[in-house]
Structures are given as C-alpha cells and as structure tokens.
C-alpha cells in the first residue's frame, strides 16, 4: 500500500515539475515563521512579518537604502526641508511627479494627508510613533499643492525622530480614493486593507491564504520595477522543516534556521547563508525594588560575573548573535564595545558575600515559551544561565510561560528577573537609551524599578542633543554607567539566520528588518 503511495507521489512530483518549470526563475519563495502576521494594512501592521511585506507594497516619503540606517534617502518625496515655524517644526516634502499606485492613479499630496491622518485615527499598535513620539495630530499634515506636503509637529518633538519614523510601514502612502471606496462604517478601509493592497510599492498583494502563504505580484504601474514577477511568503514555523524545504528546493530563502542547519547549509555549494544584523538585545532585567536582593548593586554586578556569556554565545547562540554588554546595540550611534565582565563564579561569590549573601540566594527567572533572538528558544537560554548561576551559589527557578503572560507580570513590576528581548521602536539610540535608563518613561527602567537620577538625566540630554559627537559622548557616559550599576545583564545581540539557494541574488536586509524585494533576482 505504502509503496503505491510513493509511486503516486513521485508521479505527481514529475508532473508538477514540468508544469512549473517555466515560472521558477521569475518566482521566489521565501519561507519563514510568519505566524505573527495579522494584517497587511500599513497603518496597522506592527509585527515583523507584517512590516517585511508591507514595506514592499507601499512606498514611504523617505527611506533608508541598503543596510545603512544613518542617511535618509528620497522615497516618494524627492526632497524635503525642516524649518522652525513659531512654536513648531515645519517639514515640507516635495513629491516626485509620475509615481503611480497599483490602481493606476498618481500619488499626490492628498494621499499623504489621508495616510498620515489615517494612521492617527486608526489608533493601531504603532500609532504611538506618530502621536507620542512625533506628537503629530490630525490636521497637522496639509497639502499645499498636489506635489507639496507640509507637516507641523510641536517644538518639543524631534524632527529627526519623525523622519526616521517615516521610513516605517506606518508612513506608507495608500491610494486614498481606492481605500475610501472600500471604507465601512468609519473604519478608513481598515477591514479591506487587511488583505488587499493599494500602494505604489514594487509589488501588489494578490492573495493571502492565512496560515499558509502570501502571494505578491509585480505592480505593473510601479516606479521601482522589480526583477522578479512573483514573491511567495510561505509560512513555515518548524526550523527542521524550513531547512528541509530549502534543501529540497521547495523554498528559495529560509529565515530562522538553527545554528546547526545554518552551518550545514553554508558548507553546501548549492546554498549560501547570511547572518543579518538586528538592533535587538537579549537581556535579563532584574527588579531592584527595595527588599529585593537585586536592590544591592553588588548583587547585580555579581549576576553579571556569574553568567558565562562566552559559552552562551559560542555554544548555544553559535554565531547567530554577537557578544555585547552595554545597552545601545551595535549599528546605532553611541554603541559602546566595552566587555568588562567575564565568567568568574568566585568573584561573583565574593561580591555576594560582601552584599550579605555568603550562601547565595534563590530567585524566579521569568521567561517566555517562545523563541528569543537568533532562533534560540528562550527556555534554552534560561536553562543555560541557570546552570552558570548555580556555580556561583545562585539558584534560579525557571518559569517559562506564554509571552503575553510573562509580559503582564513584567509590566506590573511583579517579576524578580525577566529574560527576554528588546528592540528599539525607531533606529536611533534614543529608542534604547530612554526606555532602558529613564524611569519616568515608564518602560524597562520603570519595570525593573530602576529610578536613577543620573541615568535619567543622561538619557534626556542625549535625546535632545543635536550635535552627533556631543551626543555620542553623552551616550558613552550613560552606557558605562548602566554597565556598572544598571539592572540589566545584557546577553547578546542576535542576528537573523538566513539560508538561500545559490541562485538568489540581491538580498539585503537592514538592521530594522527591512528588505527591498525589488532588488532580489534569481539566476536560471
């Protein structure tokens, strides 16, 4: 019986191969865990996969190119200028003529106004970038003429941050006429845009089979002509399956391989690999509230001496991440490459004794059941750390629960130590410095009850400083300070492990996770 199935199967493979052979060089299949995908609406999507896809369906006014995250380049806007106007900043964009949506309409200033107001009114999970960080309001964006847009934000907001926010998918420009046509009951077309597209990006959305795949096709009207006709985002969650699918040619790109799989694939000439940078930090946050052992800075320091970071990075993360001990990731201004802590349980014990814990202590290590950066299960990292700490007399009891549940505990300051990841909301050192150092920002410093005047002050000064070298000096002070007395044990900065068929060319990913699909091509 089983043999018959096998024969039937091979027959099917042959037939299938014949039929699809001609599409293979113009179609690219990109496999990865897209299970977080819930919408393809640029103003609502805030998930990694949603961003990855919508970045290619919609264009933004300004953008980053290649892997560079420091120089803004023209997107839909061919030029822009920032001016002071009374109590606000006035940012004026000049739109390019002749950019067209997939619907064939031209992109004009009214589409920009509609898209920005839409982002604010929909109150999606990323809307705070507009409303809180840029302090942009409905009406703050104005069409001066069909090709000129003027945006006003208060003087307390930073125009630099606003421009870098505009490179995100929330700043994607939608075809206002098309979207309004599909609007229902004041939803600004949200329901329709969830699985339809109306953008000027190089691709348009053809079909989304939820839980299975997203099918993109070249946008015939696009200004940026893609090299491929069709891109299929195939959802594959199991790392083993991902590897097998790549090796058998079912997919062309595999995102999220295990370190072993990445090594095996790198050794095979039919494939190539890439460890794409990210701005993520994997870290442990220690709750320093009074009464907790971590309230004593010596205990915090002991923790940093008691984690075998070298083994963690070389053995477990295996090159899917780099060693880092400071709070601003590599790739941003203010990155500090200091690595003072080495695994030294004896030294940790000594510090503990000085802090009044000669026999060590016990705590709960809270983490999520999911993956931490670099494709490593958080539980594996926690287990590894647990055994390191044990040698310094510190007993960690792991509690691994659903991510949301762990976050709830963390956000309520009810944890002892939390192990997880952090990515800045926008590509600027302030995306890390303020949340991690300023207690009043109600983010990580607050969650770990680290109310430190020095750290808060340095973070504030850094965010307002406009001179890059002065700013870098401030962040050097801040990172050194947090390294010594902060509530964090920074573990590593993960990279995204990718495997490709050797035929795939032109794949570049910046540390924000953006990939320009139009530059990817496939050799026959």
């Amino acid at each position: 019986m089983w043999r018959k199935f096998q024969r039937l199967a091979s027959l099917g493979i042959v037939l299938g191969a014949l039929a699809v052979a001609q599409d293979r060089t113009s179609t690219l299949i990109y496999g990865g865990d897209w299970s977080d995908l819930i919408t393809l609406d640029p103003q609502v999507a805030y998930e990694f996969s949603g961003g990855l896809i919508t970045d290619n369906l919609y264009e933004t006014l300004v953008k980053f190119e290649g892997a560079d995250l420091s120089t803004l380049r023209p997107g839909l806007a061919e030029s822009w200028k920032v001016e002071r106007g009374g109590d606000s900043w006035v940012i004026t964009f000049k739109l390019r003529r002749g950019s067209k949506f997939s619907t064939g309409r031209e992109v004009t200033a009214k589409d920009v106004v509609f898209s920005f107001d839409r982002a604010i009114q929909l109150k999606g999970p990323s809307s705070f970038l507009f409303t809180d960080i840029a302090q942009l309001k409905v009406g703050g964006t104005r069409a001066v003429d069909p090709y000129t847009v003027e945006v006003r934000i208060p003087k307390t907001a930073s125009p630099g941050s606003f421009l870098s926010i505009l490179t995100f998918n929330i700043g994607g420009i939608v075809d206002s006429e098309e979207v309004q046509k599909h609007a229902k009951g004041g939803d600004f077309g949200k329901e329709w845009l969830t699985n339809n597209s109306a953008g000027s990006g190089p691709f348009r959305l053809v079909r989304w089979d939820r839980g299975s795949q997203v099918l993109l096709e070249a946008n015939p009207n696009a200004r940026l002509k893609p090299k491929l006709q069709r891109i299929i985002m195939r959802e594959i969650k199991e790392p083993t399956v991902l590897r097998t699918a790549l090796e058998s040619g079912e997919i062309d790109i595999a995102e999220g391989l295990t370190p072993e799989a990445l090594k095996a694939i790198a050794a095979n000439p039919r494939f190539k690999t890439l460890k794409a940078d990210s701005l993520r930090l994997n870290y442990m946050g220690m709750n320093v509230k009074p009464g907790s052992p971590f309230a004593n800075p010596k205990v915090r320091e002991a923790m940093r001496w008691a984690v075998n970071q070298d083994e963690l990075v070389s053995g477990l993360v295996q090159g899917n991440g780099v060693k880092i001990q400071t709070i601003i990731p590599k790739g941003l201004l203010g990155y500090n490459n200091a690595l003072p802590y080495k695994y030294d349980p004896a030294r940790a014990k000594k510090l503990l004794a000085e802090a009044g814990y000669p026999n060590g202590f016990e705590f709960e290590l809270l983490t999520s059941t999911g993956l931490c950066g670099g494709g490593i299960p958080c539980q594996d990292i926690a287990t590894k750390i647990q055994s390191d700490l044990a040698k310094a007399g510190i007993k960690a009891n792991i509690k691994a629960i659903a991510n949301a549940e762990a976050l709830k505990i963390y956000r309520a300051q009810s944890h002892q130590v939390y192990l997880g990841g952090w990515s800045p909301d926008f590509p600027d050192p302030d995306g890390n410095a303020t949340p991690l150092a300023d207690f009043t920002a109600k983010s990580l410093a607050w969650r770990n009850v680290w109310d430190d005047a020095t750290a808060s002050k340095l973070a504030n000064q850094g965010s307002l400083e406009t001179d890059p070298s002065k700013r870098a000096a401030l962040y050097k002070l801040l990172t050194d300070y947090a390294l010594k007395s902060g509530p964090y044990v920074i573990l590593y900065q993960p990279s995204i492990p990718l495997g490709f068929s050797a035929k795939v060319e032109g794949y570049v990913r910046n540390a924000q996770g953006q990939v320009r699909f139009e530059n990817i091509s496939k050799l026959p």
Partner: protein
Amino acid sequence: MSGRGKDFPVPAPETLNPIMLSYIVRRLFFVLFVVWGVTFATFFIAQVVPVDPAIAALGENAREEQLQEFRERYGLNKSKLEQYLIYMGRLLSGDLGQSLRTGRAVAEDLREFFPATLELSLVAFALAVLLGIPAGILASLFPNRAPDVAVRILALLGGATPVFFSAVLLQYLLAQRLDLLPVQGRLDGFLFPPPRVTGMMSLDALLARDWTVFLDSLEHLILPAFVLGMFSAAILARMTRATMLEVLAQDYIRTARAKGAVASSVIFRHALKNASLPILTLLGSLLGGLLSGAVLTETIFSWPGIGRYVTQSATSLDFPAVMGVTLLVGLVYALVNLVTDLLYAFLDPRIRYT
C-alpha cells in the same frame, strides 16, 4: 434494507416511523445541549486566566490608553456575567465574537481554517479505513498465524507511538533523506492555488479541473494524513479483528463453512455484515477524534487548519477563538455521533429508540 433482513434475527423496519422521528428530534436537542455545555465550560475556563488579553494582543510596547481602549472595544472590562450574556446573545445570532489575536470575526477565521482540517481528517480517515479494516479482516482469517501476528504487532506500535514523533521522524526520513514527499504546506509554492470554493485544496483543484494542482495537493496530503490516521488505523485493525473473530466463531457461520461455502463469500456475506455494527460506532468516534487530534499534526506540518489556529490562540490566550474552535469541533463531534447512532439504529432494528 429488507434484503439484509435474513442476516439478522429480527426483520428491519421499512421506513422512518414516528418513533424514530421523535428520537431524531430528541437527539438534535441533545446536540444543542452538548454544544451549549461546551461553550459554557470553555467560558468558565477562560475566566481562570490570570492574564490580560489586551497585553497578549497589543504586545510589549503598548501604551496604557491603547490597552484601555482595547478592553473597552472587546467588553473585557464588563462583569463576567455580563460578558457571558453578551456572548450567548451574539451566539444565538451566529456571531462567535472577535478574535483578540487576529482582530477578525472568529467565524471568519474558522471558515478560513476549518476546510483544511476537514480535508486532512477525511483523507486520514479514508487511509485509516483502507488500512485498518482489511488488516483486521486479514488477521481474523489467520488467527495466531503470521499475518495475524504481524497485524497485531503493527497495531500495537501504531497505538503507542506518539504522533508528534512519528510526524517529525517520517518528515525527516521520507521528505528530507529520501526526498520522496514534500515536507510542508498544502501545495507547491510554484503552483498557483485554485480559486477558493470549498477551501479544500484538492477538491477545489478538481472543481477547477486543474490536474497538476490536484495531484500536487494529494501529494502534500499523504504524509500528514498518514501520520494523523495511523493511530485510528491501529484501533480499527484491532477492533475489526476482535469483532470478526467473535462473529466467525458463531454457529451459523460455522454451519455455512461446514456446508462448504467458499471462504471469501462466507466472510463477506455473513460475517462482515454482522461485524459492521460495532465497527460503525467506532468509525464515528474516530472521525470526531481525528478532527481534534489534528492539533499536533497540523503544528508540525505547517497545515493551516483549526488545530494550529487553536494552538496559537491558546498560546496568546485568545479565548474567543479557543471557544469558537471548541464549539465547532464539539458540534461536529456531536453531529457525527448522531449520524452514527441513526445509522446504527437503521441497520440494527433491535435498538429501541429511547
């Protein structure tokens, strides 16, 4: 049915009679009752959750105002009783509520994911029947001889192997090492999926008369369906064997055999017919079990069905979605059982409609 009468001690009823009708009506009410119970139990369970679904849905960096608004939108800040009454009220009009994770109507999500599970379960069911019943018959014809021993051992192994491991193993061996079958998904990525009619890929391909896609979709079904159906096949083989042995040992079969009836005709005319009732009952519960058992298989094979949907929903504590799935599976389960019972009653007139 009257032709079968002579095999049974009592003649079969001719058509639907009033007693049977009222039996059906009563059973339908019972199905409704069970479904209500299922929702109540799930709602009850959902209340134990110590977690804020708003954070689950909006993520780590959500602002407090966003959380508050989310809670208001989904009625999460109302009292439990109010939430339940609202839920039941909506349910009566066919509204299963909104998923906290996907933000869509749960009913819409289920419409999207259920056909994939149904397709997988039906194929697994067919495989189980095609493998399990013949194996059981074969074993019963040669008690304690080689075929019987082989079937019994296979059935024992099939019933004891964790499905999540056989899935991983077969995937590795058949797909990766031997490259015989695709490892994941429902269709080769380079093929264009057929227009969605039923949501079952193979059926849709048939409707579109796209043979390449049809064959390819079958190919993608083999491995997950086999893994899912293995356990059922094992149980079926055991059950068929036991039932057949029992029937074959009965006097009238022995008589027929003694009279020189050819072995195969004896088996199929007499024995199998009489053995069919208990097997039928088992088939019903197996089909129901396959639907909910797809959870692990779907997770491993990236199969976009309700099994994977419910796992993801439970992980992110999206209880409206979990309730929707339990409701649907409970309903299907109850209906399958109802149909089995009716068939049973129809085939075996000794059953009283009580």
